[in-house]
């Protein structure tokens, strides 16, 4: 996509492609590697990297064997000596074969070296239920990485955010895990402003409201916005906060909001138990216990693997009705 086109709308796949394109253009240290990312391999299974190896060469946009440890190791080694690799782990479940590289190495080398080396690496990965890919291809595992010191976890909810956050990840001096939602790739949204970075570690108040604070990220953020819009018609004024960066997360923005609204609902697609929502809820409670008008509530997937059958998959993903019902029940709890 050339700058002169400047489309009004764009989907997330295009936004990711554009961010990679801009990053490759502006810094020779940026390289891409991953399975099928080159154009001889059709620019990736979903085409996220399409056109980039043709434009920047096979040395900088490198299709790899199916070997996630080797991919991550190559990316880490290059990052240590000043490159800014963007390594793709095709699906988030496949981080499981590269956890040693990500957790024991990428995340820890700055600390263990006493700051002598650091790992300016971006890991792109996609996931999400909804495509019938079943139990080994759809997990949201962000909680694992959020719990890991030394790596940042970022998940965009819109094409424009994908663009701006991905650029920030690539330019960041720490390893970043950038989580893309597979079923949401093709949903169009307003195009990003070319070159505009979105800062890491800052949440986005997507929708201001007085009654309840809803915190979410990635695809469920959009579900929350839809519910909020609907509830507005019933006079329930919902503030929706997009975390954007899951870890380290923007505590201040959340606390400020919940201090105002006195009510909070946290929503994510990952399994609820021991998920990201637990930390956010715990944090809100620690700081705002007395101000809360009702207990913080969390919505997430049930404790089970992602099921295959569409009927079950639909029941697995947090639904609009579940979110709506959680918000309404917050409102009806007697204020104290």
């Amino acid at each position: 996509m050339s700058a002169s086109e400047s489309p009004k709308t764009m989907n997330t796949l295009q936004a990711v492609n554009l961010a990679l394109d801009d990053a490759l253009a502006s810094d020779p240290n940026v390289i891409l590697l991953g399975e099928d990312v080159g154009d001889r391999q059709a620019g990736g299974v979903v085409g996220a990297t399409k056109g980039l190896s043709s434009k920047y060469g096979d040395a900088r946009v490198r299709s790899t064997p199916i070997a996630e440890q080797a991919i991550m190791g190559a990316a880490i080694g290059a990052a240590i000596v000043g490159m800014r690799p963007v390594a793709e782990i095709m699906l988030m479940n496949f981080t499981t074969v590269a956890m040693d590289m990500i957790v024991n190495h990428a995340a820890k080398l700055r600390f263990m070296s006493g700051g002598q080396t650091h790992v300016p690496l971006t890991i792109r990965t996609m996931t999400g239920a909804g495509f019938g890919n079943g139990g080994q291809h759809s997990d949201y595992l962000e909680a694992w990485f959020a719990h890991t010191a030394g790596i940042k976890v970022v998940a965009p909810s819109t094409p424009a955010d994908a663009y701006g956050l991905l650029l920030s990840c690539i330019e960041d001096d720490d390893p970043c895990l950038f989580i893309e939602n597979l079923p949401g790739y093709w949903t169009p949204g307003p195009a990003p402003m070319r070159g505009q970075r979105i800062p890491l570690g800052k949440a986005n108040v997507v929708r201001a409201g007085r009654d309840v604070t809803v915190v979410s990220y990635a695809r469920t953020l959009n579900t929350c916005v839809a519910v909020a819009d609907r509830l507005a018609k019933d006079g329930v004024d919902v503030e929706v906060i997009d975390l954007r960066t899951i870890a380290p997360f923007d505590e201040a923005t959340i606390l400020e909001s919940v201090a105002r609204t006195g009510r909070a609902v946290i929503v994510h697609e990952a399994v609820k138990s021991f998920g990201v929502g637990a930390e956010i809820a715990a944090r809100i409670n620690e700081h705002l216990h007395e101000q809360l008008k009702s207990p913080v509530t969390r919505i997430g997937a049930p404790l089970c693997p992602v099921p295959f059958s569409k009927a079950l998959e639909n029941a697995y993903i947090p639904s609009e009705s579940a979110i709506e019902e959680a918000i309404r029940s917050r409102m009806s709890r007697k204020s104290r």
Partner: protein
Amino acid sequence: MASTQAPDRRTLLDMYRRATAVKQNDERFRAVIKSGKITATYYSPRGQDIIPAAVSVNLTDQDYICTIYRGIHDMIARGVPLKPLWAEIAGKVTGTCKGKGGAMHITHPATGVMVTTGVVGSSMPIANGLAMAAQIRGEKRVAIAYFGDGASNIGAFHEALNLAAVWKLPVVFVCQNNGYGEHTRYELATSAAKISDRAQGYQIPGVTVDGNEPLAMYAAAKTAIDRAREGGGPTLIEALTFRFYGHVFGDADAYMAKGEKEAAMARDPVVRFRVWLIENGHATEAQLKDMETVIERDIDEAVEFALSSPVPDAAELSRDVFATELTR
């Protein structure tokens, strides 16, 4: 088509029956998916039909297989009944896995299909475990690990082959080398001249065979399976083949060499096997036709069964997570 380990006529026909069942089911799967009656990501194994047919006729009812997302042919050749197989792919509660696993994760212990994995390479370490159990228990069972050429580059391959070699496990590693891992050509991802060359690093037999040639594939499978069963330890078989419908059904195939696919399809191994059987007097046209008709009827019934079966209830989300059903 000569070999030291030649199958008899009955075995040849059995192989053909299995291979053509793969072919006919695949044709129907693609048609039904295209029709929209079933929505599924489908990794067609068409073109690789002979491999599991030749392996399966060498297995006993007691043997185990572990296969992968592209494994429908391995299951059908092994004898997984079509009704629950189709129902699983359709996400129905009558499926092998109640619709909870799906096409990539079919399990059917009654026919020895113990694990089907969607993670590249992961069939191999688990097949070792099945083989280890048989070894410890003094059973004569053999475990087959199916996987692709791309999978030969991932760590699990190496760990599994080394462990199997050190422990002399009764396992056969069957690499279905179709020349591509997703969109990546063999030589761009795999440093071995032949994947079977890697066997030497484990001091186990390694053989490369034309997986589309029934007799050669049969001989390779029989040698390896007999060896494993008799306590001789693992073998790595590299079966050369081709997938007719790209990585995932619906692929653009733009990454393939021009004409590569067409040439392979023109040499359809199942069609060639059929011709060969008749030409060599192993079967008559009518006999094979009958066989195919029976299969076609089985497929009709399976499709009907799958489409008319109910979907699982949401309560299934709480079941089979642990032994005890979860209370929500």
